[in-house]
């Protein structure tokens, strides 16, 4: 069998198969007109292949002419089908161009049947026999060209133009493959067909018509696209099925969630006022789940105080497309009042008119009640805040004041509005700010802090305050809450207490000096005696004839020296008698021991008491008030003397010892050889008005203890290992 026959029948069968396949598809989906058009086109190509084979095997010119004339019929069908297939399948190509192509092709077909033998030739005079590849001999027409066949060419040209236009717009749309496969193949194969026509009909070139070959390519290309489209559709439909299932599932889930959240869905038609609801919504409103509802009856059930407001909100919701929210109370048929919170949004319809307002409503009665309770709670905490005896504050980690009480406003003088914008640096300055910042950091870290700082009130006044701070965490942020007390009054009281203590110390000192007056007078008499004697000696020397000037100079120097000595004693006395000297200085306790012993020297002599000292050399200095510490030591010394008044004259000794035994403190102790202190009285002796002496006031040791405490030290009593008492005090060494 010849290859031409085989090729033609293969073309016919391929096209037939494609046609059948797509026709079958079209039968199932009648709205897929593109598939029908493609099927028809494929059938046309199959028919054309058959006619072309017959033409190539034609015996006579007349036979050839008739075949060519009928060959135009499938050609026209093919062109028209392809044009509209392209239009429908690609959704591209100008419709009017499509009609031009269709029109010219129809005209060509009509003309074809008007002329004899056909539109291509006025007359086929002879049949040529051409030897083709593979030793094939085929018939080719020889005759006069019909000038009207130009119409056929125009028809082809308009198809090409239409397809080019369609391909371009598809290309631009981004579907490049589709543009090339469908549009491109149409252009290519139509152009080939056009060229063939021109060559055979106009050019007199002796080749057979084999349009079907070209069109097969086009059909295959388009068939491929169409098939892949079918595959795609199948995939899509599968996916669609899946997503439909998912949608159903998610819808169910949504409903379940809504049920769980006690949410009811609804929609209101603005025109009819009808309300569509989920059963849950009806249940919430206290109606039977299936009953129907309209806007008016719904609004009638709304609490009168909320009704007008809600109506306005709904009307606004119809007009605007932003989300609308409302909270309202509804009176249930049972008479119960419930709180609801609703939000909805109206969807625009395609023509721009507002569609129904749709939304969701939840019952918030519990939340509302909780809120009310919370407000009550807030009122309670406010009252607690305001009842606090100081200023309460709540700070953020950034140092912003978050909450405070009225006392905070009163104390600082700032209004609530001003405090709302207050930061730490507005209330504290310099060192105080540093102290507070450091303390707050500690509080945020979980420590409880207490500090004393000055708070800067409005206008710059400084208020001494005691501030506490405790860290707490809420809203996942560290916060600090605390209370501040105004220490102004406390400080005044403290000053008053200090003043009274000094007064008492002074009184005690004066009393003690009174007891020592004889001794002091004696001490003062010594230099006075020396001065007087020196002066009178000088007078006598002067009365002599030969005055010894050197002797006189020595006498005068001694007078000056002794006068100074007397002055020192008087100065010391005046200090001791002064009321409130609070000055502190670095002191050597060893020096102080000597000073006190000088003061009591004469007294000790009179009482026959001997003082012994065991002073540590190079004793570290302590910081204190000289007079007050002298008073303490004097008191201890006089007590020691008193304790030994019953001893034999040879057995009256006391020992003053100073030492610095580690620990940054200096200890001074006075040890006597008296009877000691009953062990149950060792603490009691420091209490005011406790005394063992007949004339004692019982203030001495109490005053001593308050002095030592004020110096940051400690005063205590103990009994000696053998006999007597030991009074000791310990003072911190100055750094």
């Amino acid at each position, binding site marked *: 069998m010849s290859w031409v026959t085989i090729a033609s029948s293969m073309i016919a069968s391929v096209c037939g198969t494609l046609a059948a396949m797509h026709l079958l598809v079209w039968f199932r989906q009648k709205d897929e007109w593109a598939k029908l058009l493609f099927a028809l086109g494929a059938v046309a190509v199959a028919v054309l292949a058959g006619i072309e084979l017959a033409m190539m095997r034609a015996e006579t010119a007349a036979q050839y002419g008739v075949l060519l004339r009928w060959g135009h019929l499938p050609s026209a069908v093919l062109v028209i089908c392809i044009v509209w297939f392209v239009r429908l399948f690609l959704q591209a190509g100008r419709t009017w161009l499509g009609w031009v192509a269709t029109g010219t092709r129809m005209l060509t077909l009509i003309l074809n049947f008007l002329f004899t033998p056909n539109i291509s030739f006025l007359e086929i005079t002879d049949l040529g026999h051409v030897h083709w590849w593979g030793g094939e001999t085929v018939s080719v027409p020889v005759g006069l060209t019909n000038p009207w066949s130009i119409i056929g060419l125009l028809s082809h040209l308009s198809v090409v133009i239409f397809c080019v236009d369609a391909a371009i717009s598809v290309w631009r749309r981004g579907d490049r493959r589709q543009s090339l496969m469908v549009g491109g193949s149409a252009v290519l194969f139509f152009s080939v067909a056009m060229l063939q026509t021109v060559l055979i009909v106009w050019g007199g070139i002796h080749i057979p018509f084999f349009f079907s070959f070209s069109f097969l390519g086009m059909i295959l290309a388009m068939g491929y696209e169409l098939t892949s489209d079918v595959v795609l559709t199948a995939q899509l439909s599968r996916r669609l099925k899946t997503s439909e299932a998912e949608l159903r599932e998610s819808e169910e889930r949504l409903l379940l969630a809504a049920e769980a959240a006690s949410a009811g869905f609804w929609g209101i038609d603005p025109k009819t006022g009808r309300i569509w609801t989920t059963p849950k919504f009806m249940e919430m409103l206290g109606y039977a789940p299936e009953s129907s509802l309209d806007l008016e009856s719904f609004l009638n059930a709304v609490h009168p105080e909320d009704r007008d407001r809600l109506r306005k909100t709904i009307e606004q919701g119809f007009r605007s497309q932003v989300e609308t929210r409302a909270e309202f109370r509804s009176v249930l048929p049972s008479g119960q009042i419930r709180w609801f919170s609703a939000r909805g949004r109206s969807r625009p319809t395609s023509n721009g008119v507002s569609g129904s307002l749709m939304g969701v409503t939840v019952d918030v009665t519990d939340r509302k009640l909780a809120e009310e309770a919370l407000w009550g709670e807030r009122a309670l905490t406010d009252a607690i805040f305001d009842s606090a005896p100081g200023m309460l504050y709540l700070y953020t980690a950034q140092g912003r004041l978050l909450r405070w009480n009225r006392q905070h406003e009163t104390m600082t003088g700032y209004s609530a509005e001003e405090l709302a914008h207050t930061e730490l640096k507005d209330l504290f300055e310099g060192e105080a700010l540093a102290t507070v910042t450091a303390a707050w950091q500690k509080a945020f870290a979980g420590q409880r802090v207490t500090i004393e700082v000055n708070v800067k009130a409005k206008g710059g006044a400084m208020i001494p305050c005691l501030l506490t701070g405790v860290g707490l965490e809420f809203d996942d942020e560290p916060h600090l809450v605390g209370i501040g007390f105004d220490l102004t009054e406390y400080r005044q009281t403290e000053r008053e207490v200090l003043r009274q203590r000094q007064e008492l110390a002074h009184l005690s000192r004066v009393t003690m000096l009174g007891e020592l007056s004889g001794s002091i*007078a*004696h001490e003062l008499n*010594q230099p006075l005696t*020396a001065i007087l*004697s*020196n002066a009178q000696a000088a007078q006598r020397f002067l009365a002599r004839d030969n005055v010894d000037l050197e002797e006189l100079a020595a006498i005068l120097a001694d007078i000056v020296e002794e006068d100074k000595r007397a002055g020192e004693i008087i100065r010391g006395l005046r200090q001791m008698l002064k009321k409130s000297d609070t000055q502190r200085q670095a002191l050597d306790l060893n020096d102080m021991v000597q000073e006190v012993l000088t003061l009591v020297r004469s007294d000790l002599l009179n009482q026959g008491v001997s003082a012994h000292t065991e002073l540590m050399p190079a004793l570290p200095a302590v910081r204190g008030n000289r007079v007050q510490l002298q008073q303490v030591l004097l008191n201890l010394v006089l007590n020691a003397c008193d304790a030994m008044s019953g001893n034999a004259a040879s057995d009256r000794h006391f020992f003053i010892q100073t030492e610095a035994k580690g620990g940054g403190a200096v200890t001074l102790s006075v040890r006597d050889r008296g009877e000691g202190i009953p062990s149950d009285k060792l603490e009691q002796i420091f209490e005011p008005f406790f005394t063992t002496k007949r004339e004692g006031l019982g203030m001495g040791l109490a005053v001593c203890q308050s002095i030592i405490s004020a110096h940051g030290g400690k005063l205590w009593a103990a009994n000696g290992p053998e006999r007597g008492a030991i009074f000791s005090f310990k003072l911190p060494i100055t750094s």
Partner: protein
Amino acid sequence: MNKPVNSGVPTIFVVDDDPAVLKSLGRLLRSAGLHVETCNSPQDFLARHNPAMPGCLVLDVAMPGLNGLEVQQALAAIGDERPIVFLTGHGDIPTSVEAMKRGAVDFLTKPVNAEVLLKAIHSAIVKDSVRRLERDEVEEFKQRLATLTPREREVLPYVISGRLNKQIAGELGTAEKTIKVHRARVMEKMKVQSVAELVRLAERLGIRPA
């Protein structure tokens, strides 16, 4: 009779524990032309003083170790009757009474005026020299008494009782003539011119008439 037995210059001992006071007092007394010895403690004084040295003691009452009264007692204990002028910072009456009872010349309060102090010292010196003179006289009388024979010593109380030789001879059972010789030997040995003088002398020696 007023012939000084001890021709030494009186020494004034001054005892005070306060160096400045001691120095000034010494200076004052020297300015009055007195011979002064200053001691800064009672112990120093007791170590340095010599009972044979004429003069007096200016003593501070309040001193560590021994106080003024104790020094006075210590001196009395060894029979040293050196006159004492006490000086005190604050004159308390019990102490001054005690001191005066024990023979203190004066009890002066510091600061002391030069006039008052020097007056007291002078009277102390006079007292000391009188005491020393008297003590020297008795010593002389004792030596004279020691030259008497036992018989003469036996006769003496009778002589100073104013008895006649005859009466004495009768009481002692001997001859009037013998008594007359004894009386003359006693008068001669005791270096007296009259019986009245012998009576005064015997009285100083503590011999009572028979």
